[in-house]
């Protein structure tokens, strides 16, 4: 594919120095995998599985790249459209997940180039895999996406990791959690057997344990950064987070990611200690949901500039979970069980809030009810995606919940994660301009109701 340098991007300037440096990790994942392949190491394409499969694969010497992250990367540099067009021409519908379409388009271009990454592929491209590691969590498209890749990556096996996604009431049923955890551990044991067979090598449990310890440390410090973001004015905005998240989300086991997060923490803490806001004119604090328009993150810089809007919290799924209670890990020595508990905790941790507010599901919905208070949110920015059902169908419910239960209104600006052809920034500005009045009105209502913010 020819690289089109004339494409105009709408990148964010980002407010944190560390956020401007975070792109290094995205590129590192891609280039490390290409180098590893040249050295004869196995490559896996992995869906985001909230760490369910990543550490195991990596501990067995596999280098992982993430097509979802690659989709975001291609969109951010506005190079996704050629892949989307390939997917279109292959007959994939344009209401299919943008990440999937980008990946399918790339995979076809890889096959057509005899499995040599075509020149000009953004970020160097995805190295040819020996495994497609799929996940049954989050959305329906992910069940079929990697299977569909079989058209272009013949003979590459697909392994699907499953995890029960209990509803709030079911979560509290007697023994439900322990049964679910047993199921996940069993899944992981099966995955290990499969990997040992595929790679003809044994899992090094000690190595896995070291990686896991490192990952828990990284996730913990990432969570502490989230806590700092409760400050007013907000020391870090979504435009920063969407860059900074890459190391904790994809590489938490990497000591370099941890060191990076120490610097993020220090930079954000310094702002909090000195009352410095990420944007100089913070007037309104908004939460963003769910997946951002990666091709137009600069849109949010403009919202800050025009209306003094700080995006103070965002997409629950990208955030490091709260640390697991100590008793959760008491006496647990099997790293597979620790992984199972970590992933399960990530998905279930908001059930307590969901129960308090009598809402469901805990994921995709309840987190925002908790954060609205903690982060003193004035508004909710809903970004429905033509191509993503789970990240869309919950939005209206969350918007209504926030308005009814906490008097926090929402504005709906549709778009797409990858496909900039369906995002209209001007329409978005127009809606938000009017929404500023709405936020003022609801501030008055919260004040009348004696609410804290």
């Amino acid at each position, binding site marked *: 594919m020819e690289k089109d340098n004339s494409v105009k991007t709408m990148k964010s300037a980002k407010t944190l120095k560390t956020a401007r440096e975070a792109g290094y990790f995205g590129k590192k994942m891609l280039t490390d995998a290409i180098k590893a392949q040249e050295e004869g190491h196995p490559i896996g394409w992995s869906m985001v599985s909230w760490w369910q499969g990543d550490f195991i694969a990596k501990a067995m010497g596999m280098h992982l790249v993430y097509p979802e992250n690659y989709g975001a990367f291609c969109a951010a540099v506005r190079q996704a459209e050629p892949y989307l067009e390939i997917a279109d021409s292959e007959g994939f519908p344009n209401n299919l997940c943008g990440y999937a379409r980008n990946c399918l388009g790339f995979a076809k271009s890889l096959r057509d180039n005899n499995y040599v990454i075509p020149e000009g592929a953004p970020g160097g491209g995805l190295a040819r895999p020996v495994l497609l590691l799929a996940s049954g969590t989050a959305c329906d498209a992910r069940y079929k996406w990697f299977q569909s890749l079989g058209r272009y990556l013949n003979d590459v096996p697909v392994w699907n990791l499953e995890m029960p996604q209990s509803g709030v009431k079911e979560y509290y049923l007697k023994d439900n959690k322990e049964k679910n955890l047993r199921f996940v551990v069993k899944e992981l044991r099966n995955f290990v057997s499969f990997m040992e067979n595929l790679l003809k090598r044994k899992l090094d449990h000690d190595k896995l344990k070291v990686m896991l310890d490192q990952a828990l440390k990284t996730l913990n410090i990432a969570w502490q950064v989230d806590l700092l973001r409760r400050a007013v004015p907000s020391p870090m905005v979504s435009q920063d987070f969407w860059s900074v998240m890459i190391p904790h989300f994809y590489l938490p086991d990497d000591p370099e990611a941890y060191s990076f997060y120490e610097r993020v923490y220090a930079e954000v803490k310094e702002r909090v200690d000195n009352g410095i806001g990420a944007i100089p004119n913070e007037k309104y604090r908004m939460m963003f949901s769910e997946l951002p328009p990666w091709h137009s993150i600069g849109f949010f810089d403009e919202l800050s500039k025009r209306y003094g809007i700080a995006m103070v919290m965002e997409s629950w799924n990208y955030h490091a979970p709260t640390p697991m209670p100590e008793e959760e890990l008491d006496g647990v020595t099997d790293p597979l069980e620790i992984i199972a508990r970590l992933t399960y905790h990530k998905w279930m941790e908001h059930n307590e809030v969901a129960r308090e507010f009598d809402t469901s599901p805990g994921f995709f919905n309840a987190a925002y009810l908790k954060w609205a208070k903690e982060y003193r949110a004035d508004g909710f920015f809903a970004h429905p995606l033509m191509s993503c059902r789970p990240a869309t169908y919950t939005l*209206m419910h969350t918007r209504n919940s926030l*308005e009814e239960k906490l008097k926090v*209104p929402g504005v*709906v600006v*549709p778009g797409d994660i990858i496909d900039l052809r*369906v995002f*209209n920034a001007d*329409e978005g*500005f*127009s*809606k938000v*301009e*009017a*929404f500023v*009045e*709405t936020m*003022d*009105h*609801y501030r008055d209502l919260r004040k009348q109701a004696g609410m804290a913010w």
Partner: protein
Amino acid sequence: MGYTAGLDIGSAYSKAVVFEDGELVSYYVKPTSGNFSLAADLVLEEALQKVGLSLAKLRYIGACGLGVTFISETFNKITELSCHTRGVHYLMPSVRTVIEIGNQSARVMKTTPKGKVADSLVSDKCATGSGRIMQIISKVLRTDLEQFGKLSEKATKPAKFTTNCAVFLETEAISRVAEGTPREDIIAGLNQTLAGKIGSMVHRMRIEADCVMTGGVALNAGLVAMMEKEIGLKIQVPEQPMITGAIGAALITAEKAEN
């Protein structure tokens, strides 16, 4: 405070209003006819002429609408949602819900007692529920839009449309004509379809009385009646439902300039 003008340059109609010290003294409405820039110049000129003013007398101009960027005079651009709520509040201060159906889209807005946007919903990226459908069908039926209201009252058996899509509605309307369905029934059926579509937006907003309908489509009394049935509230229509955006643009601009 002096004179302030407000413009709403829409895809079908351009509207201008003139305010003197906070009082509406003149307005003018004319078809945009595909030339935003010319329509903006002419409509403003006409509104000024009606009260014997020249452009030089204006202190501020506020504007909104699809063609706003084509206005040649210096002006403040204001978002349409804010303009319509403020404009309605000026005309009817007790109104808390505005259903605005323009040529391009339908909007439902809840207003605060001060005429600010309390909540809003816009029909996005689709001509469904917009005045454009009315225009298309009026051509199919070779009937002026102004007659739609009265004709639909004569309907005995409103035609059934199976789609909300503007493109397919046109196709279906042609089929109904070919089948010999009376145009009164076609118009009533169309009103029913639009009322259902816009009604679902209204229900999502959990609206409050008083309720008003604005935009050119509000002149279709048949649709207003069906909307009333659909949402279970009496709907008021201002004497001139097309100028609320321009009124709001003038008021907000003056307000911003004075503060």
